[in-house]
Every structure is written in structure tokens, then in C-alpha cells.
């Protein structure tokens, strides 16, 4: 029973959220924030597999998200919608509902294939040089997509929202929200099962000492390929969800700034701590959305107190000063992040009575 508590909690939370969304208890803004929270959880926890558990410094993770976003939206447009790009739908829109997970899986596989772009050089290269390769991969992916004019190039791509609308016409439910909740839980489960499995234990082994791991019989190249491909594949799924939530994708939305966002979440939560990163991703989304309201408030307050000259407004740009500042302070005072490389149950041993989490 104890082993299932976590699953039951997850299932109940998910059901409660979906029910309240369906009953109209949550307005659209809250729903969108919740969906971005889920996407950020997938994005950050998949990055954590490489940056945390494997100890490499990948800072181009958003590139894989970009691949997933484009492949996912192109597929769903071609299969289920009448679009200018592909002409009539290949399949009847009623099939959108059962086949949508396949679209996500395909997006994941495409992104995982691009993960090889980083995984193969990582055999010879480590540390800083690998970090550069990941940055280069991010730029290469964005550049390739921007140069394909047929899928919009720098103008971006839209029209995948119709797939979600088709699902809504078939059975009336908040489908996008349901998919995000479901996929988030599935992704976190995949990562959890992977890092606690015998096969997945090779990943922290590579982090600790690559040569020793090799001597102990860990096939380090295989482990690296696995970690990079799983990580980038899940990022691709997150990207496909992101595209469908927004209804619009643009390659520049997945530039190095987006990758940095992922890094912030991972290092906020603690490298190599799944529960820490999930908490950090939720907290980070709340922080970003919270600052949206706090900044105008601070602006009004300082102006009414006469602390600032009339021409100077505190704009939303300050958000991107405050967030890096938080991380700099974090690195100075608690560089291991919120939970370090420990899980929630190690930090609060009382929880062990209720849940098991290795």
C-alpha cells in the first residue's frame, strides 16, 4: 500500500484538477498557468536527467523542445485539420482524440533523434566543450527551422489549435488540460522509473567517475546515448504540448533564453533530485507569473511615494533581472539548490511513513 501512496496522491490531484477545470471552477488564466506549470515540470525534470544525474552541463535543451513543437504541430495539422500547408485532413477529426498521444510520441522520437547530435560528440568530449556543443546544437536546430520557408520560417507556424477544438467537438471536455496533466505525470513516472532502475543507475555512475564506471562494466557510451535521448525526447513532448497550448510556435521562442530558464529550474531545485526539480519548476512558474502582478504594484507604490522620477517606469523587463539575481544569490549561499541531490523523503524523514521514494 505504502508503495502506491504517491501514485494515488498524483491520480487524485490530477482528477481533482481536471474535474474543477471541467466544472468551470478555474478560469482560463489559471488553467493556462497550470498547463505551463506542467510543461515546465516535464522540461526541467528531463533536463535534470542530463544536468543533474549525469553531471554534464547541457545548456541547449530548448532546441529539442523546438523540434518536438514543430514535429508535433506539423503532424497534428497534417492528420486532423484542413490547413493551407497540407490541404485536407488525412484522417477524420474524430480520430484526433485517440491518436493525439501518438502525435506526442512521434514528436518525442523526433526530438530524441536530434538528441544524437549531442550524444555522439559526448563520447569524446566532456565538461565545457560539451556545454558548447549543446549550445551549438540549440542554434543549429533553430537555424534549420528558420531556413525552411515551407513551415513558416521565421514567421512561425499556427493552426494546431484546431486539433484540440476537434477533440472538444467530439466529447466536450477541457482536453488540452487533460493531456498536459496526464503527460506530466507519465513523464515524471518515466524518469522516476528510469533513474531507480538497474539500467538507469549507470547514469549517476558516469557522473561520479566515468573511468571507474567503465571498469565496473557500465557501457558508458550506451548510458550517455540513453540519457541524452530520453532527456531530449521528453523535452520534445513538452514542446509539442507547448505548441498546442499556445496554438503558435516560433523557433526564436526556443532560444538560449528558454534553455536558461530550464537551467534555473534545475539548479533551483537541486541537481539530481527529481522531487526537488518538480517543486522548483512549480515554484518558478508561480514566481514568473507572480512577478507579472508584483512589478506594476511596486511601480505604483514607488511613484505614489515619490521615490522615482515621473518618466521612469518599472517595466516587466525587471523580471529578467530579478530571476538571474535570485539564482546568483542561490549560488552564493546554497549552491546545491533547494534539496541538494536528496529527495523529499530524505529531507523530511517523517514522510517515509507515507510514501516510498528512493
Amino acid at each position, binding site marked *: 500500500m505504502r508503495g502506491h501512496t504517491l501514485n494515488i496522491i498524483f491520480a487524485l490531484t490530477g482528477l481533482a484538477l481536471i474535474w474543477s477545470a471541467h466544472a468551470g471552477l478555474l478560469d482560463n488564466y489559471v488553467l493556462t498557468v497550470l498547463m505551463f506549470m506542467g510543461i515546465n515540470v516535464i522540461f526541467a525534470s528531463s533536463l535534470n536527467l542530463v544536468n543533474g544525474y549525469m553531471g554534464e*552541463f547541457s*545548456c541547449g535543451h530548448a532546441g529539442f523542445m523546438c523540434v518536438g513543437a514543430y514535429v508535433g504541430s506539423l503532424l497534428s495539422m497534417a492528420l486532423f485539420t484542413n490547413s493551407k500547408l497540407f490541404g485536407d485532413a488525412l484522417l477524420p477529426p474524430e480520430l484526433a482524440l485517440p491518436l493525439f498521444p501518438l502525435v506526442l510520441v512521434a514528436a518525442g522520437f523526433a526530438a530524441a533523434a536530434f538528441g544524437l*547530435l549531442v550524444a*555522439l*560528440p559526448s563520447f*569524446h*568530449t566532456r565538461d*565545457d*566543450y560539451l*556545454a*558548447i*556543443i549543446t*549550445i*551549438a*546544437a540549440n*542554434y*543549429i536546430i*533553430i*537555424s*534549420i527551422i*528558420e*531556413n525552411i520557408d515551407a513551415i513558416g520560417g*521565421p514567421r512561425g507556424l499556427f493552426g494546431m489549435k484546431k486539433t484540440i477544438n476537434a477533440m472538444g467537438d467530439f466529447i466536450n471536455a477541457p482536453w488540452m488540460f487533460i493531456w498536459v496533466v496526464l503527460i506530466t505525470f507519465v513523464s515524471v513516472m518515466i524518469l522516476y522509473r528510469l533513474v531507480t532502475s538497474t539500467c538507469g543507475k549507470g547514469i549517476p555512475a558516469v557522473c561520479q*567517475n*566515468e*573511468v571507474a564506471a567503465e571498469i565496473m562494466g557500465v557501457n558508458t557510451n550506451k548510458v550517455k546515448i540513453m540519457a541524452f535521448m530520453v532527456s531530449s525526447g521528453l523535452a520534445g513532448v513538452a514542446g509539442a504540448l507547448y505548441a498546442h497550448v499556445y496554438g503558435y510556435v516560433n523557433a526564436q521562442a526556443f532560444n*538560449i533564453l528558454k534553455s*536558461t530558464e530550464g*537551467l534555473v529550474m534545475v*539548479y533551483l531545485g537541486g541537481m539530481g533530485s527529481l522531487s526537488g526539480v518538480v517543486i522548483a519548476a512549480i515554484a518558478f512558474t508561480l514566481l514568473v507569473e507572480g512577478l507579472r502582478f508584483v512589478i506594476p504594484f511596486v511601480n505604483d507604490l514607488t511613484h505614489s511615494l515619490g521615490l522615482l522620477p515621473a518618466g521612469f517606469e*518599472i*517595466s516587466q*523587463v*525587471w523580471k*529578467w*533581472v530579478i*530571476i*538571474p*539575481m535570485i*539564482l*546568483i544569490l542561490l*549560488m*552564493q549561499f546554497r*549552491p546545491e539548490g533547494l534539496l541538494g541531490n536528496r529527495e523529499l523523503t530524505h529531507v523530511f524523514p517523517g514522510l517515509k511513513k507515507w510514501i516510498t521514494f528512493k
Partner: protein
Amino acid sequence: MDLFLQQCVNALQWGSFYALIALGYTLVYGVLRLINFAHGDVFMVGAYISFFASTFFLSPDGPSLSRELALALTVPCSVILTSGVGVTLERIAYRPLRRKGAHRLYVVITALMCGLVLENGNLALLGASRKALPDLLEKHNYVIGPVMVTNLKLWVIFVALLVFVILHAVVSRTRIGMAMRAVSWDKFALPLMGIPLDKVIVFTFMLGSGIAGLGGMLFAMSYPVLDPYMGAMTGWKAFIAAVVGGIGDIRGAFVGGFLLAFVEIMVAAFLPSTFRDLFAFSILLLILWKRPTGMFGLPITTKI
């Protein structure tokens, strides 16, 4: 052919900027084994400092100096102030971490975040309106055969060469240069030999950021529209140049800068210019795959 020669001159100018920034990356990396990701933004700060300095010197209700005098004063001003920015970064962000013996990764993340703070802080404080540097140099065009060069281009190339020669001499001939090389060999034995570690590191940051400040000023003179994100992309590219040359080696940074610029300019000249980034980064990927330590870098030994 004429186009090719003309583009070669352009590539030399563009490569000078890359080389000037890449030298800063490589100096810091060579000494501390730290990728100073904030360096591209230090370059941007240098350009802004030169903008404020030159408008101040030229302003009619300020000193209202002549153009030549303003130029002569702006150069030391931007170099010194920018190196101040670099040293401040080192002092408040990197040194506390180094004292604590934090993992190298934490310092790299701090550097990345410092860069974001610099560019977004600039945007937030100065607003999105683009600034244009006043004309400091009277433009002359020289026509040599099929090629046309401006005096500014010649100055840029000349300054980059001069900085390289001086820097090479400093690192290989002087006592402080010897100390810098010593830091990169063994950071722990160094204080035992009576070499002040912190002073050497501060000097390295001063040198690197000063060169970036000079580069920023020259960049602002050549392309006189400034924006807060100009340092980010140029900085990443210069970093690539440093890596292609073999990071940690001064010759590598210099050659890598010109090589990258040559590739970029030629791609932009003879192919659609949107392919520029694609080619630059793909070349980087190939070089790192086949020769992971760059052109001049020594092979790394892995620990056993």
C-alpha cells in the same frame, strides 16, 4: 573575384571584433578554467560606456571638446571603466565562490546569470530606445585596386593586431604573465611560491575586460547603433572562435576569430544570409567532434 577580395577585407574587420572578445574569454579560461559567459555582455557594456563618454565629451554644455580630443579621451575612458566592470564581477560574484571552493559548474552558472543581469538591467534602466554613437572619426575611403576600405576598417584591424602582439608579449615575457601561466598550471602550489593569486586573477580580468571595452568601442564606431542584446550573440560567436582555436591559447583565440568571421562573411556573401549561423555552428560542431580541444589546444588527460 573582386567581390571575394572585398569580402576578405570585411571578414578581416569582423574577425577583429571576434578576436578582441575571444582574447578575453581565452585569458580568463586559461587562468581560471572558467568560461566567463558574462564576457559578451561586458563587451556590450564597453560599447555603452564609450557612447556615454563620447556624448559627454562632445556635448556643448559639457566640455564640448573637438572630435579628435574626444576620441583620444574616450578610448582610455571606455577601457578603464569596462575593466572596472569586469573586476567588479569577479570581486562580487566569482571570488566568493572560489574562496568557498565551489564546483566549477556553479561559477559558470553564476557567470551566465551575471550576463543576463547585465543585458536585462541595461534594457530596464535605459529603455529600449536605440542609441547611436556620435561620429568620432572623419571617414576616408581608400580605393586599392578593386577593394575599397575605410580608414576605420584599417584602424580596427590594426588595433586588433596591436592588442594581440602586446598581449602575447605580456603573457610570454613579463613576470605577471609568467604568474598567469603559473596559475593555470597549479592553483594550489602558487601561493606557496609567494605569488599573490588574487592579484593575478584581478589582473587577468582587467586585461580581458579592458580589451573587450576597446572592442566594444570599435564595434560601436563601425556599427553605430547600440542595443542591450548586441553582446549576447557576438559574445557567443566569439566564444566559439576561442574554442575553435583551442581555448586557453592566445594565438588560438586570434586565429579562431578570423577563421569564424571569414566563414560567416563568405556564407553571407555567396549564400542566403540566414544560413550564416547554421554554417558557423555546424563547423564548430564538426571541429569539436573531430578535434575536441581545438586547433592549438593540447589534449586533455582524463583522471584515472
